[in-house]
């Protein structure tokens, strides 16, 4: 099979596999860390022991998740060098620097304070412990920032130009503030937050539905629902803003996202494709369900297109993405989930306002709770689908418009890459199953509601100095 001896294809598959696997874990650690900051803050403010127990319980899932995240993150740091050496040499000045910042500013901060967050309860002053939790959350989300800065630069390069195969930077800050950066960072930040909210919510709903610690988990469900009120619609809007940029800067990707073969001219409406079966060799869609005149509304909220939307046929096959079907459906899955979660939020808020989420009634909301449980993995699916659109849709470019993926790969024997790829596939499958297994064990076991509360249950506050002897000075009559 040709694929097995094609180093570039194998390196691509390996990068896709390792990135997709790695992405699963930071998505939860970034969002859940913020949740932990909220819960610990509530504990410090209200002294309600339940908040402390929430912090301890969710930390268990956090550390399991974090471990696999770190393990799978290490290959990412080195893979640019092992499998993409020509690319590394060409863009290292900027791209490498940003990865260095991610390590030094963000990841090290998170790892440095994680020990205190997990094991430092009682060993350090509560304020210092809270500071540690904040640093973990800050570090984790700063990682999101730097990684997205780097990836956004790949999507919309700026701050310099290619000279003799190497990207020479003229303005580092312009490179950081590349066109995609703000919207991409925001979209990813809210993606991780939204995924975490629905994971925490889904797990909480499971407990409530199974009549375990109902009051305890109603608290967490309401916290995440409150956050979802802002996050779910905002994420849809930011998604729209991101798509706007794709339309402007990456027309090949937009065409693939919409399985659009023919160009639609400006000044007229165009149909929006809802479902289709793309036929790449025939450069058409075999069948299609469209929404008449919908494209203008989706892209620009108005009937007529102000700019032409170019179709895939405008480019030679070597200059536009392949696997159009994958990109097209990944986009629909991601957006569909975004709308679904917003809908779930609205339904839940309605029930909340009707008083159906009160302690007496929440256990009876079986359909709602089941939907929350169903929604728990959806954030992950949306995030991965989005990344597939982002990266597969960027092809044939690694640095959009400048460096082709085919030219970016290391010249290695295909057998080397096939071996490492196979090992990753096997090992990551084992890790995936194991993590789900151990995660479900933590959940089934449940929170420890007997956990002693620091500062309340320990004896350190009791006075241990011996009392000073003061002789009785009262007048003799009063001593009778």
């Amino acid at each position, binding site marked *: 099979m040709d694929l097995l001896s094609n180093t570039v294809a194998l390196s691509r598959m390996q990068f896709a596999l390792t990135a997709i696997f790695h992405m699963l874990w930071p998505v939860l650690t970034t969002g859940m860390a913020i949740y932990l900051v909220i819960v610990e803050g509530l504990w410090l403010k209200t002294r309600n022991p339940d908040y402390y127990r929430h912090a301890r319980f969710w930390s*268990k899932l956090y550390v*399991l998740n*974090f*471990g*696999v995240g*770190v*393990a799978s993150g*290490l*290959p990412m740091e*080195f893979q*640019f*060098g*092992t*499998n*993409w*050496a*020509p*690319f*590394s*040499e*060409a863009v*290292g*000045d*900027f*791209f*490498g*620097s*940003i*990865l*260095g*910042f991610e*390590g*030094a*500013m963000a*990841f*090290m*901060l998170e*790892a*440095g*304070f*994680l*020990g*205190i967050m*997990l*094991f*430092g309860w009682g060993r350090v002053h509560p304020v210092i412990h809270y500071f540690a939790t904040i*640093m973990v959350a800050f570090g984790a989300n700063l990682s999101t920032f730097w990684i997205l800065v780097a990836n956004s630069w790949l999507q919309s390069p700026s701050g310099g130009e290619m000279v003799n195969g190497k990207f*020479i*930077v003229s303005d580092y800050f312009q490179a950081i503030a590349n066109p995609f950066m703000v919207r991409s960072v925001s979209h990813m930040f809210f993606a991780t937050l939204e995924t975490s909210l629905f994971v925490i919510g889904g797990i909480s709903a499971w407990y409530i539905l199974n009549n375990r610690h109902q009051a305890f988990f109603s608290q967490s469900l309401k916290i995440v629902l409150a956050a979802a009120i802002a996050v779910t619609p905002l994420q849809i809007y930011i998604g729209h803003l991101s798509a706007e940029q794709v339309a402007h800067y990456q027309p090949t990707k937009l065409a693939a996202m919409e399985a659009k073969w023919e160009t639609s001219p400006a000044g007229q409406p165009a149909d929006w494709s809802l479902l289709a079966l793309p036929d790449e060799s025939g450069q058409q869609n075999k069948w299609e369900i469209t929404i008449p005149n919908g494209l203008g509304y989706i892209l620009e909220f108005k009937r007529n297109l102000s700019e032409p939307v170019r179709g895939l046929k405008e480019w030679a096959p070597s200059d536009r993405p392949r696997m159009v079907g994958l990109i097209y459906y990944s986009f629909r899955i991601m957006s569909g989930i975004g709308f679904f979660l917003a809908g779930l939020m609205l339904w839940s808020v309605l029930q909340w306002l009707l008083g159906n989420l009160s302690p007496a009634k929440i256990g009876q909301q079986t359909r709602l709770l089941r939907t929350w449980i169903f929604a728990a993995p959806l954030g992950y699916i949306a995030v991965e689908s989005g990344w597939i659109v982002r990266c597969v849709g960027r092809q044939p470019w690694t640095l959009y418009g400048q460096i082709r993926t085919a030219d970016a790969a*290391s*010249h*290695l024997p295909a057998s*080397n890459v096939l071996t*490492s790829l196979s090992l990753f596939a096997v*090992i990551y499958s084992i*890790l995936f199953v*194991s993590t789900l297994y*151990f995660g479900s064990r*933590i959940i089934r076991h449940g929170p*420890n509601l007997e956990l002693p509360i620091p500062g309340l249950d320990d004896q350190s506050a009791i006075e241990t100095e011996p009392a000073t002897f003061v002789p009785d000075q009262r007048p003799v009559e009063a001593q009778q």
Partner: protein
Amino acid sequence: MDALLHFLPQVWFVILALFLFLYVMLDGFDLGVGILSLTSSDEERRSLLMTSLGNIWDANETWLVLMGGALFGAFPLAYGTILSALYIPIFMMIFGLIFRAVAFEFREHSDRKSLWNFAFGAGSFMAALGQGFALGSVIEGIAVDEAGHFIGSTWDWLDWRSLLVALTLIQGYVLIGSTYLILKTEGDLQKTHFRTAKLAAVTTFIGAILITIATPIVYEAARTRLFSPPLVYIFAVIPVLGVVLVWLLLRSLNREEENTPLIWTILIFLLTFIGLGLVVFPYIIPNQITIYQAAAAPSALVFMLTFIGVLIPIMLFYNIYNYIVFRGKVVGDGYGE
């Protein structure tokens, strides 16, 4: 301007050496404890060993991530060439570290602790082996053309010299792991590690001597550089200092001192690093490409230096703070409750 073009790559060479030294020292004892756990007799001991690392292994491993990123940004040519040339040992290290990392988390929740204890030990061993081969190959030299691109073959990294470095590195990790455990454990467990530390000190020393002799003998280029002033004075002092430090280490182990063995070991590691740095400098892809040839543009080096320079003391500070918070002997606490 010329001075700057020289100075910036030199600064980054030193910073990378610093990150590498910190990594080898800190994750060195993590991996050393892991390798030692393979020889440990019972589950309870192994559990205690892992617990002693629980809160810090992660931050320690991060220095490796940091080094990778810094190498990428400061010497992109070297980053690409070295990593793709050493594809097999690097992935050996990566897979080893993956096993080591997940073993920590999974062990806590598993009924089959022995399986994950083994993963912890085997992963640590495999990571150390991969690192040793990589380090040995870099010191030996990597076959590149004038542009710095790899022109050798996949198995170039595997020969008796890099094997010697790998085995010595493993012994070095076992040594520093043992001295770390002497500090953090007590009773029988501590006593065991006085023994393992002594053995590892001797084997590491022998390995280091062999490597020191082999390097100038085998390499013409090293010979000319190292045996002429002023380097020859420094190069002559290092083995002498090494012998002194090893003697001090063995003496502290015989006296069953708790804190000093780790300190002597760290100094031995530091000395080794200085020696290696002198042998390699100014090459970053020995023995063809210098740091000046492989460096990113001066603006890139300044850009990175500004941010990372400020961050280095901050990172060191909170890492040290982490150790201070968890100072003292390991008690049999559960990991993560």
